[in-house]
Structures are given as structure tokens and as C-alpha cells.
């Protein structure tokens, strides 16, 4: 169970945020459970720090002074293929327009900045173990953007392989998981509710995250355009 690992494993964490007060707040909140190996306040120093420290998890602000948080992920990816670091977005709001770009750039999810320390520790553990972190809002957005089953329009894609259209669809189970996440359930609670293991719930969530990152669904682009993000 992940709960036991939370207690034992001190993940190495880097905090990237341009507000020193906020970084201090986080460090104070999670310092007893995580090892804070560094802090950065902008894109370039963050890339250097991540390259040097190879932390398990990077807490990454959506907006940095000289660019978006996604540029940090891209910057590290451009320097090395073997970075072990995983990214958890930090957003002031949970308006998905702030976060979709970060998730599409490779973050394993995001949390809002007013999250309390216990929940943040849980989210960091999820990300460190390679799982996805869905806020209720992000889950709601996924439900809005992805069709439940092949629709007439999905069938109209010509010459696209099955693999391609799989990325654009949620399985009924994934949809159930997303609905429960949107209702404020944790993975563990969803497992109890759906009579599956929490591990399986995590697998479903990760699969949905991958679809969110890889899909070219027109809803995603449409939505992004409507909210003026790329």
C-alpha cells in the first residue's frame, strides 16, 4: 500500500516557484516527510538544478517569470533522455487552462496551491511512484473532452489505426474512475467503491493521463484555443 511507503520513503524534491514565501511555506509543510534538495525561482535555474540534483519529484509552478512551467520540462528533456525526475504542477487556480499545457508538456498532474500539506505529500508520493494526480477539475475536463465510446464522428476518422483512436477514447472503467475523481474520491476510495484494488485505479488514471498527453482530440485543441493556450 502506498500509505506505508509515504511514511518510510523520503522522496527527494525540488521546488520551482518564483515566490520565496510560497517555497518556504511548502518546505515547512512537507519538510518532515520529504527531502527538499533545492529550490529555483525561474526556468533556467530550475533546469540547471534538476540536471544537477536529479530529484524524484519537481514541484513546478505553472507560471514562472520568464516562461511557463512546461518550458522547464522541455528544457530538461532537451538536455537528457534519462532524467529520472517526475513533475507535479502547482497552480494558483484549478482552472484547467492553467494546467493543461503543463500536463501536455509531461507533468504527471497538478495540485492547487491551497492544498494542505498532507494532501500534497500524498500527491508527491503518487507522482514519485509514476502515478497520475488528477484534481476533480482536471477529471471533469477529461470527461468533457473525451467521448465515452466510439461515436459517429470518431468512426469517421479515415485511415487511422485502432491505436490512434484508442488514445481518443476512454474505456467505461476509465470513465468511472474519472467520475469518482471528479466527485472528490481518492484512489483508495474509488477502489473500495468499484471493488478493484487501488493499484488498478492508479493504472486506469495513468492510462487516462497518457491519453490526455498524447491525444490530438479536437476538443483539446478547441478548448485550448478558446482559452488562449497552446
Amino acid at each position, binding site marked *: 500500500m502506498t500509505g506505508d511507503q509515504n511514511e518510510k520513503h523520503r522522496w527527494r524534491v525540488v521546488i520551482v516557484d518564483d515566490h520565496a514565501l510560497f517555497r518556504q511555506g511548502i518546505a515547512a509543510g512537507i519538510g518532515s516527510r520529504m527531502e527538499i534538495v533545492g529550490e529555483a525561482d525561474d526556468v533556467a535555474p530550475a533546469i540547471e538544478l534538476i540536471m544537477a540534483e536529479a530529484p524524484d519529484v519537481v514541484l513546478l509552478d505553472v507560471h514562472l517569470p520568464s516562461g511557463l512551467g512546461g518550458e522547464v520540462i522541455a528544457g530538461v528533456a532537451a538536455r537528457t533522455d534519462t532524467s529520472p525526475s517526475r513533475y507535479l504542477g502547482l497552480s494558483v487556480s484549478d482552472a484547467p487552462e492553467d494546467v493543461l499545457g503543463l500536463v501536455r508538456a509531461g507533468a504527471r498532474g497538478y495540485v492547487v496551491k491551497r492544498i494542505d*500539506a498532507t494532501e500534497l505529500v500524498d500527491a508527491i508520493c503518487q507522482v514519485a511512484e509514476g502515478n497520475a494526480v488528477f484534481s476533480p477539475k482536471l*477529471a471533469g475536463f477529461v470527461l468533457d473532452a473525451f467521448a465515452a465510446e466510439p461515436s459517429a464522428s470518431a468512426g469517421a476518422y479515415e485511415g487511422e489505426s485502432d491505436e490512434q483512436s484508442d488514445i481518443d477514447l476512454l474505456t467505461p472503467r476509465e470513465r468511472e474512475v474519472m467520475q469518482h475523481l471528479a466527485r472528490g474520491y481518492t484512489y483508495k476510495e474509488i477502489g473500495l467503491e468499484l471493488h478493484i484494488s487501488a493499484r488498478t485505479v492508479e493504472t486506469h488514471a495513468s492510462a487516462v493521463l497518457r491519453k490526455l498527453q498524447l491525444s490530438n482530440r479536437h476538443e483539446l485543441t478547441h478548448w485550448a484555443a478558446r482559452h488562449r493556450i497552446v
Partner: protein
Amino acid sequence: MCSSSGWRETVVVSVAEAEPPLRKRLLKLAEQAGKRGNPSRPKPGQATTSTSGRIVGGVAGLLAARLGASPLVVRVAFAILGLAGGVGVVLYLGLWLVGPDPSRTPRPRTLRHDLGVVAATASILATTFILMPTVPAALIGPMGFVAFALAFSAGPEIGADLISGRAFGRIVVGLVLMFGGLFAGVAALGDIGQIWVISAAIAAVTVGGGVVLAPWLRQLIDGASLDRVERIRAEERSDIAAHLHDSVLQTLTLIQNRSDESHVVSSIAYQQERELRRWLYEQSGSEDGTQSEDSGSLRTELTRVASAVEDDYLVVVDLVFVGEAQLSLVALNALIGAVREALINAAKFAETDTISLYAEIDDERALAFVRDRGVGFDPDAVPDDRRGIADSIVDRIERVGGTTRIRSTPATGTEVRMEVPL
């Protein structure tokens, strides 16, 4: 558990974090003010005079640019048209008067300009004689004076020059020449009784005065609209400052005063954050007309109810909404009413500060879940005299053919599931 008061202080930071969007919003406001209040900004398809490479008024250069022709060709065309019945001159003056002046920087006097004045003089003179072939030869000199005065005085920068005091002499010289020419004409003619001469004189004075004053007047108008843009911007700024003062700064003061009460601080900060967001983004939404478009929809109504409960009970309602479909008014009212009651129950009794509200609508039904992680209760153990849940939630939903399910345990809190058919 790390919910120390030190951690809660980060809530304050999250309000400060709203700065980048605020800055964006301010920029947008400034931009809108600029668009609204600056009519002299050239728009596509509107005649403007050309700033660069102009000789007199810049009309020919601009027209050439618009037609894709060489400015020289256009100038020659104007000259020919000017000689052939004065059409060119009238056209030129017309375009020049109508076209707003995009530049507000005085252009240096050049030989080209002086040659242009001479050419314009000749053109006006020629036009006069073509239009009025019976003008006695004695008038050529005075008419020349008037024409030169007109051409000399006319210049787009006259207003700016006048304001700076530089062109005062030029305008005086122009006016003296003009009236001198007029009186010389009358004197040369000798016979004041000839109506048409007087008419011509009056026309000359009027046109001359108009030409002298027109650019200056236009400059004044342009200047006034610049002032207006400045004023609108200043008003926007003071509007924003006033709002921030009434809301954010007050809240920050409140937070400083009560910094030891972490629960109060986080409530205040969250409330302020939400209010600021609403002010920043919904204002712009209503400008686009997107806000009124779906008023009365389930999404809008749920947002309203959630905000109201947040404000009244100092809790956070995490609203997630999925789907798009229209609910009948009766079903909508029933569902909204039930959701409000469920939220208020959670806010009052669950002893938690966060409530999840998830709603989903498709072609068959609308679903809403209100969930808290609070203390929970035993639904069967609720005494009969506490009719709150039964009346306010279950009955409302049942009256429109829907179903309610309430699950609550002391360990995991409460979830109310409400479903109504479309």
C-alpha cells in the same frame, strides 16, 4: 498532519499569485481603452494621409500606396486633373481634409515642400481661370497672392506648430497675403458694384480661412481625443485601484490583524481570491456576451449557488461540471434547490471547510453529487422531527421524478446523490 498555521500562510501567497493574470487584465483594459477612445487610429479601408515621402499633404503618397502605383504617377495625375477643370485640386483637398493625419510630429520644411507649395499655387490659379474664364487679367496678380497664401498656409502640422508657437509667423503671413490679395483684387477692379467679384472675394476668404484653420481644428480634435484616451485610461486605473483598495488591500489588512487565527485567515483569503477572480474574469466574460448567453443553465446556476454557500458559510465548494444539455425549468429549479440544501447541510454540520460538488448532464438525466469528508451521520438515526433532509432534498427531487441517495458514515463523511430526468 502538517496543518500548522505556518502552512496556512501560504494561502496569502496564493492571492498574491493572482498578479500575473491581473497584469494581463490591466493590459487588456488599457488596450480596450485605447481602441474605444482613439478614433484617429487608422483602420483598414479608411483614408489616411501618408506620413513618409509626402510633399504637400501626403495624399498622393497614400493613394499611391493604396493603389499600388508610383507616387509620381499619382502626383502627375493630380496635376493633370487639376489643370483640367480643377477636379484634381478639389479631389486632393477633399481627400486631405477627410483623411486623418496619422502623424503628430511636425515634418521638417524641405525644398520638396516649397516646390509643392509653388505647384499647388499654380494649380489653384489655373483652376480659378478655367472655372471663371471671364476674370479680367488685372486680377491675375491678386489671385496669385490669394492662391499662394492658401497653399502656403495649408499644412497638416499647422495645429502642432501653432501650439508650439513656431508657425505663428507663417499663419500671419498667410493671412496677410490672403487679405492683401483680396483687397488688391477689389482695388484693381475698381468697380465694387460687380456682384461676382465680391462673391469670388468672399468665397476666396471663406475657402482660404477654412484651409488655414481646417488642419488646426482637426489637430485640436485629434488632441482632444488623445486627451480622452488618457482620461479613460486614468479612469480605468483609478477604478482598478479603488477596487483593489476596497477588496484586496482591506483583506490583507484584515489578515495581518488576525494572523494568529489560521482558520479565519484562510477563509478570508479564499473568499477574497474568489471575489477577485470573479471581478477580473467575469467582467470580461460579460463584455464578450458569453456570460449572459447561458444564464439559467445548470452550470451557471450551480456556480451561483456554490458561490453563495461559500460566501455565507466560509467554506470551499469544489465545483466540477461535465456535459452540455438543457434542463427543463422545473427540473432545474428542483435540482438547484436540492443541491443548495445539501451544500448548506454539509457546510453547517459536517465540520469541514471543503465540499465537493460534481454535476453531470447528458441527454437523459442530470446528476449531482454533494460530498464532504466531514463528521458524517447515521441517516437512519436522524429523528423524525428533523425533517430538513427529507423535505428539502428528497421531496424536491421526487416531485420532478428523480431519485436521491444519501450515504453517510462517521468515518468518511457524507455524499448526497441527486438525479433528475431531463
